[in-house]
């Protein structure tokens, strides 16, 4: 739906990674396969591959983050890149420096890739459009719009547990309206061809025209979980209670919290996911978060391999051991 796909180069190869929307299934599968080949790196004695040696990657975070930033940092280091972490708090912008000024200053240091998190939707697109040629932009979360690397690590986790996507019913529970994670997950799941995507939340947390996203909307948790193979719980921002979107944590947990009882409605082998950080007792019961169905901690460790795959593919189009042409073939018609 994006008018010009600035994520791909003229050959249809990945140049930036800004949103899942508009990327072809073949490309997503390639990324998951590449991630699979990196998953072993962490078990080696020397946890490094030399793919991005001599490259400089900047983690440019305009919003606080621990997990996403550290997994990006680890991923970059395992690819042998030099990493610079820059946390731009309100201070720089308060001094009047614009986003573009910040970008230009960093570009002057000859960086090869920016991993960007920003509170405004579309910030990563904006930076990609104005970045110098040859500089890759990876979106690490922009406003409510997209968090595509998180979605890819979730797909990786789902594939590892469930195999083929086409038979799966996936239920996403929680604040869809404000969630960039949910938007990217929904695009990834529909591109990968799952059977059904459901979202469960009260009306105040469902965006307008949800059918534009291709999901089925439920307002009752057990109905939404019925026979689901994958359950994704979203973090509930406590601010929502102030903005008249919800009356109380208590009522939310009563109606939409994932408890053992609610989980009974899902398929017996359903997995439970959460992008973290968890609000125990608000959106999920501790016994489930720590229980056998939970794959929450695996999501975190998969994050490193998936981000290694995305960074290496965006910076050099051919994966290890594969000629570049194999990648571009399937992509050309999508360019």
């Amino acid at each position, binding site marked *: 739906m994006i008018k010009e796909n600035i994520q791909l180069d003229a050959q249809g190869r990945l140049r930036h990674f800004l949103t899942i929307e508009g990327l072809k299934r073949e490309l997503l599968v390639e990324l998951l396969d590449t991630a699979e080949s990196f998953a072993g790196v962490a078990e080696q004695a020397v946890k490094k591959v030399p793919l991005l040696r001599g490259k400089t990657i900047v983690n440019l975070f305009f919003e606080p983050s621990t997990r996403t930033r550290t997994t990006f940092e680890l991923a970059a280091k395992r690819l042998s890149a030099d990493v610079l972490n820059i946390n731009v708090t309100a201070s720089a912008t308060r001094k009047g420096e614009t986003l*573009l000024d910040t970008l230009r200053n960093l570009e002057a240091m000859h960086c090869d890739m920016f991993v960007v998190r920003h509170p405004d*939707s*579309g910030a990563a697109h904006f930076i990609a459009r104005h970045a110098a040629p040859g500089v890759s932009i990876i979106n690490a979360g*922009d406003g409510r*719009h997209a968090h595509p690397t998180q979605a890819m690590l979730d797909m990786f986790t789902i594939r590892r547990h469930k195999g083929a996507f086409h038979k799966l019913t996936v239920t996403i529970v929680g604040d869809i309206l404000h969630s960039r994670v949910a*938007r990217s997950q929904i695009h990834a799941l529909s591109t990968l061809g799952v059977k059904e995507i459901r979202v469960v939340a009260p009306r105040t947390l469902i*965006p307008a025209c*949800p059918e*534009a996203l291709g999901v089925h909307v439920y307002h009752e948790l057990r109905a939404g979980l019925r026979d689901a193979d994958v359950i994704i719980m979203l973090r509930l921002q406590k601010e929502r209670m102030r903005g008249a979107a919800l009356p109380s944590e208590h009522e939310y947990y009563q109606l939409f919290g994932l408890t053992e009882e609610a989980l009974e409605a899902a398929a017996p082998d359903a997995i439970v996911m959460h992008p973290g950080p968890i609000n125990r007792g608000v959106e999920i019961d501790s016994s489930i978060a720590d229980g056998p169905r939970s794959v929450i901690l695996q999501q975190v460790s998969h994050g490193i391999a998936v981000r290694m795959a995305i960074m290496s593919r965006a910076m050099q189009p051919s994966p290890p051991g594969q000629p570049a042409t194999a990648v571009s073939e399937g992509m050309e018609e999508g360019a």
Partner: protein
Amino acid sequence: MKGIRISGGRVVDPANGVDAHLDVYVAEGRIAALGAPPPGFRAEQEIDATGLVVCPGLVDLRAHCREPGQEHKATLASETRAAAAGGITTLCMPPDTDPVVDSAAVAALIRRRAERAGYARVVPLGALTRGLDGCRLSEMHALKSAGCAGVSNDFHPLESPLVLRRAMEYAATFDLTVFLMPQDPHLANEGCAHEGAVSTRLGLPGIPAAAETVAVATALALVEEIGVHVHFCLLSTARAAQMIARARHDGLPVTAAVSAHHLHLTELDVLDFDSRCHVLPPLRTQRDRNGLRHWLARGALDAVCSDHQPHEADAKLAPFSATAPGLSGLETLLPLTLRLVEDGVLDLPAAIARLTCNPARILGLAAGTLGPGQPADLCIFDPDAYWTLKAEGLYSQGKNTPFLDWELKGQVRYTLLEGRVVHALPAAAPESAAAETGQRQDAHEPA
């Protein structure tokens, strides 16, 4: 009697029901006669309007000129020059300057500076509340005496419906028109795009259609009691336009306008986070755009305005929601409205009425007509000329328009203000560079 003869053109003067090939005679800054020359007339200057349309100078109900206070964006001189290039001879300026137009002195300053520039007549709106603070009424009588065509709080919210009621009552005392920007600030909730499929996909904070309809409903309920003339500055939803149509049918003294861009663009133009399409009220659905066209054709919407908001380049260089809303619209008002004729929405006289006599009536001005004795404000345009909008061809200091590189039909050839030629496009062969790249040959801004 000496003056200008404009010969051979198709004269369209909707206020007087004129649509015919006539000569127009201008003397002493006024229309001297249509058709036959007045007795003793001697043409000092001849304008050959063969193949051109001669109509009243356009009246734009909403154009921000940024002066005083934001001269880095634009000045009265730069924007009135742009108005002349767009065939606009009268423009109405909202009160949100710095300082705000809440005193006679600021209103007088704006008029004086515009007069000194000499390209177009500028009519300010006075602030509805002091400093646009939304609670204390401005000195409306003084503002009216200083030449304000009405009072408005623009997008600045009023503290409560009670303030709105009091402001309407006070304005009605002096027969002042209240210009309302119908957007409920609480429902708009700092959104930046139409709440719908596109805002959902892009994750942009949405402004629901109800933000507009609720504000219109509140205002209409008060107008019904008070009887004040209210003009709705900009409508963006089909539903609100329909509500105005019904209110008009019920005899309420309300008028409404729509921007040229809301008649052509939709929420889909925001895809790609195109900040040039960040406008307020937001671009809405295809259905809304069609509804606005429908009610414009039916007359429930009286006028098309530019909602001109020039910005410096930096104001649009940020992630979508962080950019300043608004587009530079003076120089596209006429061709975008003529496009509605091409699209079969309006015939040419009806389109011109929505740019001339209708907005003039809303402002209470003797403008927008070609009746003998009226000020000779004229727009002479080639209805068949195609041209491509280029940033370097724009006279406005603001180059922020999503219509760049659009091929537009209908090009202003001459603009006259009180009998003076304030803009003239040299006749050029259609293949030449001038016709291709817009009119401006003397300045080349960096792209």
